[in-house]
């Protein structure tokens, strides 16, 4: 046996910091002091799709309010929101441990639980967007011609409903961030102020890119719409990058998981460079249809990776005792515990 093994005269019987001379941190065999969320792929896919739906609805409503007249634009945004709001609850129910009890989410409303308020907002927004899309379908002749149902659907006051649904839609786009921060996970909780706004900006940019992508691919949109979307995309990407930068500042050293070997390439390469910088370069350059399509795809992929690294990074953050203990520490030394000098 070497001195190395018995550096402080003790047999190396454990990894407890007091026994192991190589460690000076205090924790219990490195076992995570908090439990991570079980959330699997359904959750970050939902964060992404729900965001696209919310962003699209914002566009449709603003289009209405500004008296926009581009049928293809409204059709795209409304059907997008509908599809997103059909898929979202499916993903969420799928992720439950007891899916058959999903309705229990609506047996009570708890304002301090973002999971509760989010479920309500999703239900309300989903129902309203269903009404709006039904009217659109009737006008598009998708309800099997001129029958009672389609005549009824055409009576839906879709503009009014769009405006009423807007706050719920915006909440669906942003509460996913609040959902993360209202936990004990250091990386999330540290960014409590900006997580929601960052998720929302990403939702709006994804909604914009999706709409622009569909209109470009189908060669449907009129020039005015495409120009407006492009302008909005540029502005939104700039805002998003500022919010992400500010979020990283607020997370401080607890943002470490985002730059790990596993997530770093996805976050830096996928979200920041691929999902924000590259599309901005494409959009600010001389415009072409192909470039716009590529930019939109990059934004959508970047938006997905953003949600992925945030969810998975939070899992890694929860698994790191050092990260949690420094987070849950009194700034003044010692706290309420009597100080003992050895």
């Amino acid at each position, binding site marked *: 046996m070497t001195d190395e093994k018995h550096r402080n005269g003790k047999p190396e019987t454990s990894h407890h910091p007091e026994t192991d001379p190589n460690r000076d941190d205090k924790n219990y065999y490195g*076992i995570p002091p908090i439990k991570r969320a079980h959330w699997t792929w359904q959750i970050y896919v939902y964060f992404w799709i729900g965001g696209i739906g919310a962003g699209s609805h914002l566009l449709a409503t*603003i289009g209405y309010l500004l008296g926009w007249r581009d049928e293809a634009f409204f059709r795209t945004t409304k059907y997008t929101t509908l599809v997103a709001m059909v898929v979202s609850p499916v993903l969420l129910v799928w992720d439950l*441990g*007891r899916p058959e009890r999903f309705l*229990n989410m609506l047996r009570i409303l708890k304002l301090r639980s973002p999971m509760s308020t989010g479920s309500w907002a999703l239900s309300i927004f989903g129902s309203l967007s269903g009404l709006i899309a039904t009217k659109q379908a009737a006008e598009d002749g998708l309800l099997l011609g001129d029958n009672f149902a389609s005549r009824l659907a055409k009576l839906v006051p879709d503009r009014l409903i769009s405006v009423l649904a807007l706050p719920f839609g915006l909440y669906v786009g942003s509460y996913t961030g609040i959902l993360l*921060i209202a936990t*004990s996970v250091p990386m999330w909780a540290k960014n409590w102020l900006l997580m929601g706004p960052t998720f929302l900006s990403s939702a709006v940019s994804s909604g914009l890119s999706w709409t622009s992508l569909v209109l470009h691919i189908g060669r449907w949109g009129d020039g005015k719409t495409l120009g*407006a979307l492009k302008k909005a995309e540029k*502005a939104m990407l700039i805002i998003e990058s500022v919010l992400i930068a500010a979020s990283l500042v607020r997370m401080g050293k607890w943002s470490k998981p985002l730059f790990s070997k596993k997530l770093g390439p996805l976050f830096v390469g996928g979200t920041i460079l691929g999902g924000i910088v590259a599309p901005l370069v494409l959009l600010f350059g001389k415009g072409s249809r192909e470039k716009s399509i590529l930019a939109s795809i990059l934004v959508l992929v970047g938006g997905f990776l953003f949600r992925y690294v945030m969810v998975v990074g939070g899992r890694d953050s929860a698994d790191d005792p050092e990260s949690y203990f420094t987070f849950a520490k009194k700034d003044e030394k010692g706290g309420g515990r009597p100080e003992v000098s050895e």
Partner: protein
Amino acid sequence: MATGFLTDTTVCIGCKACEVACKQWNQLPADGYELTGDSYDNTKQLSGDTWRHVAFIENPKKKRLTGDVDLVALAEDVKEDLPNGAELDGLGRWTFMSDVCKHCVEAPCQQACPTGAIIRNEFDNVYIQPDVCNGCGYCVPACPYGVITSVPEDGRAFKCTLCYDRQIDGLEPACAKACPTNSIMFGEVEELEKLAEERVAQLHDRGYPQAFLYGTPEVGGTGGIKGNHSKFILMDVPETYNLPENPFLPQDKVAGATIACGVAAGVLGAVVAWAFLEG
């Protein structure tokens, strides 16, 4: 009336009677017979199937030796300075701690729960109604102490019920009943607080100034949690026992975060409208 636990880790001998009693009474399955290779603790942590967990913390002799170590001689060298001339084995000693749900006064898990499955029962304990929980798992990352856990095989979340069923019948919780050293005490929170105060003072008098109570609004039950109904007398920094010193009530941030989102929604909407007007 609020009931709770006081776990005095200074008298715990690490027998794990509480772990066994809890598993038996609550009919909890085993957690896999895994060997950690770390000390004698193969339970590792609290989980949905383990509602009491005894931590085994090695507290070795502080004296530094160099060169080859003769373990026998080391063990016979029993002169660690302890108050009142107490003697100690040369290999050091153990600190044990029987961990359990803290039954927070403002419980993060309860505030997180969207279904209202987690309630405060008539004994003011934090209790999950198993027939309501839909397994969303949101309570899990909310708990600042890593107590409540989803059980994948079942789907739902579980944790210590403070033996709700036994309390209804006027019995004390199974762990407190089984504990041979009275390290686990059960009773009314106020009485336990008095007991804890006396015990900590006694330990200080006997020359252990490091003893303190964990689970008060000053340490352990901090940051809006307003203390815990299940408290612990500890002899080392909380982190040694895998406990946070200064946790927070996560839901205190919800209102501020929601306002921030409202502001952001207004700004982002205005930006899109501007682009549409200009475009």
